[in-house]
């Protein structure tokens, strides 16, 4: 099935994706782009779960169900985050994280 593709290739790919998400999370200042970086991170973790499940424990299904639940949690998270972002935009007319500092003392 996956002849010629070792498990390590999937893991390296997921690591690169994860850390580009981390880079975006650290450098971006717009709330929506920060949210997109978080999506990248969650997605790379899903690849890891599935690759481990298929290569190391093909008789079990835990990895698959875990990534299914991760996808569901990510969908819920995005819905709530975007409603918060829209509310912030209504109050401050910006979604730049450095301009939204009303609760700083």
């Amino acid at each position, binding site marked *: 099935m996956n002849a010629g593709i070792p498990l390590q290739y999937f893991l390296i790919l997921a690591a690169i994706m994860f850390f580009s998400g981390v880079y975006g999370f650290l450098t971006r200042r717009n709330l*929506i782009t920060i949210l997109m970086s978080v999506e990248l991170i969650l997605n790379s973790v899903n690849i890891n779960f599935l690759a481990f499940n298929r290569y190391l424990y093909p008789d079990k299904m835990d990895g698959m169900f875990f990534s299914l639940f991760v996808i*569901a949690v990510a969908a819920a998270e995005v819905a709530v985050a975007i409603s918060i972002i829209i509310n912030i935009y209504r109050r401050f007319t910006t979604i730049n994280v450095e301009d939204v500092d009303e609760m700083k003392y």
Partner: protein
Amino acid sequence: MIANQIMFFLFSAVIIVFSILTVTSRKILRAAVYLLFVLISTAGLYFMLNYQFLAAVQLTVYAGGIVVLIIFSILLTSHISQKFEPAGLKKSVFSAIAALTGAILSIVTILDYKFEATTQAAKEVDMKVIGKSLLSVENDGYILPFEVISVLLLAAMVAAIAIAKKSAPSGTQSTTLKQE
């Protein structure tokens, strides 16, 4: 080179290039479209790993739902033609150092570790098996997380409505109650 190797390298090239573009692009709508490409290629990888159901979920929930939601909120909150000013030099250099250090560290660890697979026969994951184990209380049953996730989705839905709703100006609520 075998066909599936070519497919794998194609998908990984798309994922790596576009995930880096997602976090560095200076136009927000383009970043969202690059994210869409990354998510679709990830679904392709799931197909290669023989998880058809999860690939379909990835395409519908992520590519179809989340990206559309993100694009909608971009259209509501930003000007399309507006470009971000690039992040400060100090900030981007330090973030790049942190990300590169992490990536190199984990790649070295991955290449160093000897993974040992089980010798058990592979299990075919078709739709019937997935549906049965999602609702079973036996071994290999996932009914508890299934129920928890359904409560979480309900809570998230209520929270999203409650937060995004325009709050009524103070005083109007009591008068409407009296009129009724």
